């Protein structure tokens, strides 16, 4: 007799054993020769500069929104793709309309110039303004 909870427990146990064996085996076999370069944070092969806790440019936000359009599209596209064979051309047309409307969102961003990274007149905040609270 095994309930669904039992299966989950089994997964946990097997997972722990698997990971435990791998780590234990690795620590037995691997050579142990640390040096400063090896201990440094790996950042695409570059030497890390400054703190990672910086504020990102808010222009990334617009890019994230454009991503969001197509991210959610996948959610609705997936069940459609699973049952697509049984539905035929009508479902295909319906999904095309949906896709068209989403693409229009991208066209809107494009037409309004939100995709251009270099804005015509970037407003650069000046430190003294920020301190006075002007902008």
């Amino acid at each position, binding site marked *: 007799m095994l309930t669904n909870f039992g299966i989950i427990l089994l997964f946990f146990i097997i997972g722990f054993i698997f990971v435990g064996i791998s780590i234990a085996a690795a620590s037995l076999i691997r050579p142990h020769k640390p040096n400063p370069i090896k201990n440094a944070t790996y950042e695409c092969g570059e030497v890390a500069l400054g703190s990672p806790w910086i504020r990102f440019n808010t222009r990334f936000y617009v890019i994230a929104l454009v991503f969001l359009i197509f991210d959610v599209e996948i959610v609705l596209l997936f069940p459609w793709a699973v049952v697509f064979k049984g539905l035929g051309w009508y479902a295909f047309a319906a999904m095309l309309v949906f896709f068209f*409307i989403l693409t*229009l*969102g991208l*066209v*809107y961003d*494009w*037409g*309004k110039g939100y995709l251009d990274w270099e804005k015509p007149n970037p407003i650069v905040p000046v430190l003294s303004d920020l301190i006075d609270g002007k902008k």
Partner: protein
Amino acid sequence: MELEYQFLLPLIIISVSSVAAVAFDAIWKNKNLNFSFSIFALLATLIAAAYTLTASNEAIDAIKAMALSDLISKHQIHFGGYSAYFDILFCLAGLLTIVAAKPFIKREYEEYNEFYSLILFSICGMMLISHSSSLLVLFIGIELMSIPFYVLAGFFRKSIFSVEASLKYFFLGAFATGFLLYGMAMLYGATGTLDIKEIGIIISQGEAIPIYLTLGIGLMLVGLSFKAAAFPFHQWAPDVYSGSPTVVSAFFATAGKAAAIVGFVIIAKEIIQFDVKSFQIADTARTAQLIIAFISAATMLIGNLTALVQKNVKRMLAYSSVAHAGYLLMGIVASNELGYTGIIFYISAYMFMQMGAFVIVSVFERNGNEKMSFDDYSGLYKSHPILSALMSIFMLSLAGIPPFAGFFGKYYLFLAAIKADFLWLTIVAVISSIISMYYYIGLILQMYFKEQTHGRLKSKVGMAKYTLLITAAAVIIFGIFPSLIVDLTYNFF
């Protein structure tokens, strides 16, 4: 199939044109183009909706009898009757708002094309609410209405008032959506279907699971009273209405509130039924009715009492719109023919009078939040006789003085509540109406019998005059010939 498309036409036109408005904006970036396109789209939707309103009942019955596989709306959408009527009302509200908004946003901030597409999108959402015959469509409608509202509230994004109103509206609106959705999930759990009509049938057969049903009704009441700004969840309304751009507040307080009430009626009509085979479920329904009655009474009293102490006309109107939600809920409590007709009539009348009052405030408003206190309005009739006469008409109608539309709306609702054995609710309603007269009449006295103290107000009417003329005419016509609406809308729900 062709038959169905005829009835779907208003929804198709509004959704296609709201998407098209975004595309036009991206491609041509022409302000007048988007303005006139929105007017054109709303007029086309209005005509299509009027056509479906006149369609015969046989056609609708024929659609109802069709098999699921022959339909594209899959019985998820209600056709004709009240849906068509509310389509017309929402389109009218949108038209009046857009016409009044163009000069206002140009003067106070900057005209962005997005304004028009946002209005179109939210009207699309409202129409989906009035057409909904499934919890899913109702939910999509409510959200399609609310999300553009959050953006519209913060439309003046350089003004802290507007952004703060938007932030508040967003958080509380999304919070309410959570409750509404949880209620819908529980209703689904209690009955096993999302179809609102079927939910009603399952409840009346006493087959719903009582605990989930009770939870579902309770949570949905919370969510819907948030959206309709009813007590005890009304606190956001005055802040949002007084912080948002005035024309946008007019749109929220009229069309937005009407749509929320329509959603409320659609749900409550199926849930509150006493002719039920299970004793426990009938008891739940009776409790729900009593709770709505208390919400209604408290909303009227709180709305009117707090409006009484306001020094700012816009904020006073915001509180009065809370109170009016209370009157409208009376019709739901009564849940009889007269009550539903009363709701339809009162929404129609309320929409025009509240819109007119807000637009007059917007005409005098300067620099975001100035020139709208009671003192600024003193002695107004000397400098602006026509505008103060119009304001008096709207105020008298909101107070429910006989020759105007507001009176008959209240009359039907009060009568319906008495017929449903809710005499105490009617007494509370009458008392709060009397309270409300104090500040409505007070504004009129301020305009006509006080000396000007703060210097003359400057008005820039512009195109808003069309809005004002139409709203005033509607208030007077509905008041003199109430049977125009009542004969049309009887038996709608």
